[in-house]
Structure formats: structure tokens, C-alpha cells
């Protein structure tokens, strides 16, 4: 068999493939639900209701989507230049560490000064963390997939060390957790008394900014060129290594914002379970959005909805909530397949 490029597909065809991908995901999920002895329809209904069936559910979904928008953007920006940053998890935690170091009283400043300082510092830390693997890639030819993956484990152990050492909350009753950040370092809630915070707004701003960078700036053009064909980009006079470094700084900074926003907006302190794999889910979010920064917002809300909805469903229907992770992974694989079939047709012989 071989793959032949299709002529430009119609709008209907472009939309049909993602729908098919979601349908395939639902089929896989249905099989698992049946295996668990429940009815797929009632389970999907419960997931949908848990994700968007009430004001509480919707706000919870948007709250969960916030870190996913940041990590999704981080991955989308990096993958566009074919910089395989699988280390968003580590960059997230470094952003959270910086937030706690600066936000627990070390800097007695008003909110309007303190929060921007923390944001810049957190982004710088995340950027530096990814700069390491990027330098190893461009100078020594070390594959960044493995280095960023391994850094996830190193950083998590580093955080564990900090939480049992210098950052340990003296009032924490022995739990490995940091002190709470001071009021001036907290992001306010959007609606009084609800969990949704201004980190969500920051995420929307970041998504728009990344859209502008990717579509309207020279850097965005260079990143796409490097991702498309590094040899051709080099031949056209684009400084490939410098573009990759800039991409790494941008991507690492974005992922660190996820850690900042979770601590300053939602949790208030740093624990070892701050992120239930937001860095890895960010890869799915970015791929579902086909690496489009504005699409990342939509796909992050979609993925967050599955997780939030599955949590609610699991309590009611007794199907393990890991079904959400299965659905998200299946969606990733079926989506990349669907995108392929929307562009190519299979010719047997």
C-alpha cells in the first residue's frame, strides 16, 4: 500500500475526520465501560454532566483546563519547531518552586509588583530548565526526548528534597508540603467563592500572544520553517540553532506558568502531587489542537472536561476514573491518524 496526497479537502471533509476520531475514542471507551459492567450511555451522560452539567461543573472544568492550556501551549510551540519537549512536567514544577520561594514572604511587595516579578522569575526558571536539553541538542547532538523525560524524574526528586528540607512548612505536621504563599502573591478568584482564578485569564492571554507570535512574527515564521525542514531552513539563511534555543526558552517559560498559576491561583502551596501529569496531558492537548495556539484553549477545555467528568462519573457509576486517561490517549492516537487520512488517501498497490 502507499499514501497519496489528496487535493485540498472540502470543509466538510476536514471536519469529518476529527469527528471520526472522537467517535473511535467513544467506541474504545464504551468497550471498557461494558467490561466494567456499566452502560456506556449512562456513563457518557454522567461524564458530560460532571463536566458541564452545572455552573459548578463548568467552572471546575475551566479551572482544570488552566494548567493544561499552559502546558499545551508549551508543547505546541516546541513541537512546531520539532523541538520534542516532553519535559513540561519538570518545567511546571520549577515554576511552582520559584513561586513558593518568592511568594511566601521573601519579597514584601504589593500585589501589583510581586505577581509580575514572580511570573517573570518562574518563566525564566522554566526557560533555563529547557535550555539545558536544547544546548545539549544543538551543541552535542543529544536527543532532547530522552533528556527532557529524564529531567522530569530528576526535578520531581529535587522538589521532594526541597519539601523535606528548606521549603518544608514548619506548620505542616510533617507532611512534605511548603508554606502557603502570602496574600499579595495570590491570584484573585474570578467569581467570589468559586475556585476559578485569574490564572485562566492569564492562560487565555498567553494563548492569544502565542497565536500572534506563531502567525505574525519573524520568529514564528522561522520556527515553522525549522520544524518543516531544518536543512532547507538553514539553506535559506535561518539560524536554526538560535531559533531552537528561542523556542526552548519560550516553551519552558510557558510550562512554568502552569506551575505558577496552580500555586498562586488554586492550591496556595507546593506539594508533590501538584500536577497529576499536566505536562504529559499537555502533549495530547497540543496534538488535538493540531499545534494551533488558539485551538489549544478549546482542546484543553475538552481534555479537562473528560478528566473532571470522569471523576464525577467514577463516584456515581463505579467505573475506574482511569478511563479518562485511556480516552485521552486514544483521542491522541486516533486524532493523528484522522489528520493523516484527511490529507492522504491509501492506495493498495
Amino acid at each position, binding site marked *: 500500500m502507499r499514501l497519496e496526497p489528496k487535493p485540498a479537502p472540502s470543509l466538510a471533509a476536514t471536519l469529518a475526520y476529527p469527528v471520526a476520531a472522537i467517535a473511535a475514542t467513544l467506541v474504545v471507551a464504551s468497550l471498557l465501560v461494558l467490561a466494567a459492567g456499566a452502560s456506556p450511555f449512562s456513563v457518557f451522560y454522567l461524564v458530560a454532566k460532571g463536566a458541564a452539567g452545572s455552573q459548578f461543573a463548568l467552572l471546575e472544568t475551566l479551572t482544570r483546563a488552566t494548567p493544561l492550556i499552559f502546558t499545551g501551549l508549551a508543547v505546541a510551540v516546541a513541537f512546531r519547531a520539532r523541538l520534542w519537549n516532553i519535559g513540561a512536567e519538570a518545567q511546571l514544577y520549577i515554576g511552582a518552586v520559584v513561586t513558593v520561594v518568592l511568594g511566601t514572604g521573601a519579597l514584601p511587595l504589593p500585589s501589583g509588583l510581586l505577581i509580575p516579578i514572580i511570573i517573570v522569575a518562574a518563566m525564566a526558571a522554566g526557560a533555563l530548565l529547557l535550555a539545558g536539553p536544547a544546548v545539549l541538542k544543538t551543541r552535542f547532538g543529544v536527543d532532547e526526548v530522552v533528556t527532557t523525560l529524564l529531567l522530569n524524574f530528576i526535578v520531581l526528586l529535587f522538589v521532594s528534597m526541597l519539601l523535606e528540607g528548606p521549603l518544608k512548612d514548619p506548620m505542616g505536621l510533617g507532611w512534605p508540603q511548603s508554606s502557603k504563599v502570602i496574600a499579595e502573591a495570590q491570584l484573585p478568584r474570578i467569581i467570589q467563592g468559586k475556585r476559578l482564578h485569574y490564572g485562566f485569564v492569564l492562560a487565555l492571554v498567553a494563548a492569544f500572544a502565542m497565536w500572534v507570535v506563531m502567525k505574525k512574527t519573524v520568529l514564528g515564521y522561522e520556527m515553522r520553517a525549522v520544524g518543516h525542514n531544518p536543512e532547507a531552513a538553514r539553506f535559506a539563511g535561518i539560524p536554526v540553532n538560535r531559533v531552537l534555543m528561542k523556542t526552548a526558552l519560550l516553551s519552558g517559560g510557558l510550562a512554568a506558568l502552569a506551575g505558577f498559576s496552580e500555586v498562586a491561583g488554586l492550591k496556595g502551596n507546593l506539594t508533590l502531587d501538584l500536577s497529576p501529569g499536566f505536562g504529559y496531558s499537555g502533549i495530547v492537548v497540543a496534538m488535538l489542537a493540531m499545534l494551533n495556539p488558539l485551538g489549544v484553549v478549546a482542546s484543553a477545555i475538552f481534555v479537562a472536561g473528560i478528566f473532571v467528568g470522569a471523576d464525577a462519573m467514577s463516584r456515581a457509576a463505579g467505573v475506574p476514573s482511569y478511563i479518562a*486517561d485511556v480516552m485521552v490517549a486514544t483521542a491522541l492516537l486516533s486524532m493523528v491518524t484522522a489528520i493523516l487520512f484527511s490529507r492522504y488517501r491509501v492506495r493498495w498497490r
Partner: protein
Amino acid sequence: MEQALEILFTASFWVAAIRIASPLIFATMGELICERAGVLNLGIEGIMTVGAFAGWFTVYSGGDLWTGVAIAALAGAMFGLLHATLTVPLGLSQHVVGIGITLLATSLTYFTYRLALPEVTSPPKIEPFQPLPIPGLSQIPVVGEALFAQTPLTYLAFATVAVVAWVLYRTPLGLAMRAAGENPSAVEAQGISVTGIRMGAVMAGSALMAVGGAFLTMSAFNSFFFEMINGRGWICIALVVFGSWRPGKALLGAILFAAFDAYQIRLQQLSGGVVPYQVFLMMPYVLSILALVLVARRATYPKALMIPYQKGER
């Protein structure tokens, strides 16, 4: 200081090193086969998780140990088939598909575990493989204990290296596999299907990865728990590079790495809590990165690694 050196001469240290090396040897050989045929398999971490669970669960449900190993290998091969279908004939990004396979395999395993064992709070245990000393050889001081008083799965790991090396360098199949990773058009010109070779390699490699995972639940420990693979798959990818895609060198790398890992555990006990234990736990990952940096300059990747092959395309 003297104590720190003495560790290196104790038999128990080398026994532990070989035990730690065994799952890495399986999985490294698995990854090596895939990459030699031109496919980077980032599904390794998830496939090891599947293998660890499938093997353990087979025994837990009443199967015997070798059936467990076979089921683990089969489960690994199935995920390999999925990976290969998406990356070889369809030519999708090996990075994205690999991460997707890891996420899918891991979450499916956790889902199945929760479904099959909803009530358990502490992981149930099985009767794992027992050490099988080889008469005569196991009497040799230090070396004998380390190499010839292990469980049967460890012997299988070493045998796997020999078989992989023999197939790769001494058989027409191995030649075709290596050529599929270096110059696929040349394979096609011989009338051999590159797609077939690559898909077969990914399935066989994934089966080995799964057996590596099964070693953890069926030989090193006796129960399955979440996140037990703990980055071992990623370390194996580093070991393949470190071993410059050669089975013998990769075996050496795995043993060296495992010896270091066993050493840091003992140093940790010696240090008596002066140095935070996390520093010791970080070492294997740091070491993997250092090893990559060390060899990267002279690494000769299979030339067609990560490049999808389309028949008749140049």
C-alpha cells in the same frame, strides 16, 4: 571511605547489580531491535508497565510463571503491532505515536488493575521466580554467585543478548533488519518488504520490553504497584545510544549502569542520612544524561532511524 570501596568486592553487591540489570537488558534489547530496523519506540515505558501487570496478573489468577512471561510478551507484541501500524505503513510521527502508546498502555493497565482488584489496599503478592543456582558454576566465589545463582529470567536475559546479536549479525533476517534501518531502498531492491521487516522488529522488540517489565513483578519483586517502571524505559533508550546500537556494548552499559545503581543504594545506607536520599535516587537519571552526552559526538545513529519509508519514493 574504605567501607565504600569494600562494597565493590562483596558478592551481594554484584548479585544485586545483575538483578537490577536484568529487566534493563530485556528492554534495551527490545528497543535496540526496533531502532536497528529504523523505528524509535517511545512506547517502551508503557509497554513495560503492561508487561509487568500482564505477567503478574496471569500468575495471580492461577497461571504458572512461564505462562505469565508468555502472556506478558504477547501483550507487549500487541501494543507493538499498534505502534508499528501507525508508524510504519502510515508513517506517523514516531515521537507522538510513541508517547501516545505509553500513555495508552499505562492508563489501560491502571484501569484494568482497578477493575480487576477494586478492593485491595496493599498490592497482593504472588510466588515469584526463585533463584536457580547452576551446579558447579555457582560455587565460584563472587562471580559465580553474581552470575550463576540468579532466577531463570536473568539467564533468559543474557541468552536474549546472544540471540539478538546472532540474529542481527549472522542471519539474512538480521542483515535485512539492519539494512531497513540504514538504507531501506536497498532492502526493497532485494524483494524484501521494508514494512514487513520493520513491523516484525517493532513487535518482537515490544515483546522483549514487556518481558523486561514482567521481570520486575515476577522475579525482582512479587507484586504490581503503580508507577513501578519509574523511568526505566527511558533509561533503556539512553542505554541503546550508549551501546552504539550494538547488543554486546548495550549489555555492558546495562550492567555498568545497574552496578552504579546498586552502589548508590549501598552508599545511601552508609551515608547515614547526611546527604538527602533524593540525591542518591537522582543519580541513575543524571548518569543516563551524562552517558548520552559522553557518546553523543561519536554516536552513529542508524541512518534511516525515524524516517518513514514509502515504497517507490526517494
